[in-house]
């Protein structure tokens, strides 16, 4: 392990929908709510667009955790995309577990366009959580296996 847990700065990749969470993160910005700089958000149209391969790719590129966040159930801009996403992730989580990725490294949340504060608190929280988990090093091992 390269870094000790104390100085470990995790890399967290977030896949967020354009309508709710991306806008919520924008609101955190306009409200000047501070949170750790460990997060990198990738904007997609909807959580329903997110393919499981995106997450695996993120881990492959060195992410220590991945966050998927979209609209609250019932509030999807496209009516039902987040429901499809939710169903997909329930299965995908099991798959992750099976392939040896700690499911605590894959996080899900609903953040609406009005929830700037929730976004900043979420990032605070998950950064601390992932810091505790330590760096994710097992991907290469999994790929080789």
């Amino acid at each position, binding site marked *: 392990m390269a870094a000790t847990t104390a100085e470990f*700065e995790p890399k967290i990749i977030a896949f967020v929908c354009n309508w709710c969470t991306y806008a919520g993160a924008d609101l955190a910005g306009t409200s000047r709510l501070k949170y750790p*700089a460990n997060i990198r958000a990738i904007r997609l149209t909807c959580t329903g667009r997110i393919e499981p391969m995106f997450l695996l790719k993120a881990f492959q590129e060195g992410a220590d955790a991945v966050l998927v966040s979209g609209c609250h159930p019932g509030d999807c801009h496209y009516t039902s995309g987040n429901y499809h996403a939710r169903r997909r992730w329930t299965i995908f989580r099991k798959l992750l577990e099976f392939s040896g990725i700690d499911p605590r490294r894959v996080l899900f949340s609903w953040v609406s366009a009005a929830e700037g504060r929730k976004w900043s608190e979420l990032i605070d929280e998950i950064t601390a959580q992932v810091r505790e988990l330590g760096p994710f090093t097992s991907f290469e091992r999994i790929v080789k296996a």
Partner: protein
Amino acid sequence: MSAQRKDSPEKTFAEQMAAETGIDVRKCYQCGKCTAGCPMVPEMDYTPSQIMRLVQIGDREAALRSATIWYCASCLTCSTRCPQEVKIAEFMDALRERSLKAKKVNPRARKIIAFVKSFLGGIRRAGRVHEISMVMEYKTRARDLFSDVLLAPVMFVKGKLKLLGKPVKDRQAVARIFERTAGAK
């Protein structure tokens, strides 16, 4: 990473109190609803909302020296009704604790502190409060010997005052609680 934002060296009094108690009086917008509902306001030197204001502007000295913090009856009416959800009554507890520690207790609070000390003294010794002993101790401390002298015999006859109290068996255990929490003497 963002350590400097969380532990900035120059915290205001309000920020300091918020960090220590979880109660953030900066939320108070001085509507006065606490003051309006407070039953003890006539006894106070500052109203509850003014105490919030003193903390907001950082006048620690005035807040800790006020009589108000001691005349708060802890009835929690203010905390229950505060539109900004400031736990005002609980905050008064925190101010009292700091007022005692900083030895800034308002002279008008002499009797109240005497009562608190007698009360806690009793628990410390016996684990339970024995009312007669507590009252006697209080009267000596407060130099308030003659109030209520007419009430005592009546209460005694009615069996409301017992000459001997029933202490806790494990008195050591209770005394230890006081030591370990560094309680008021």
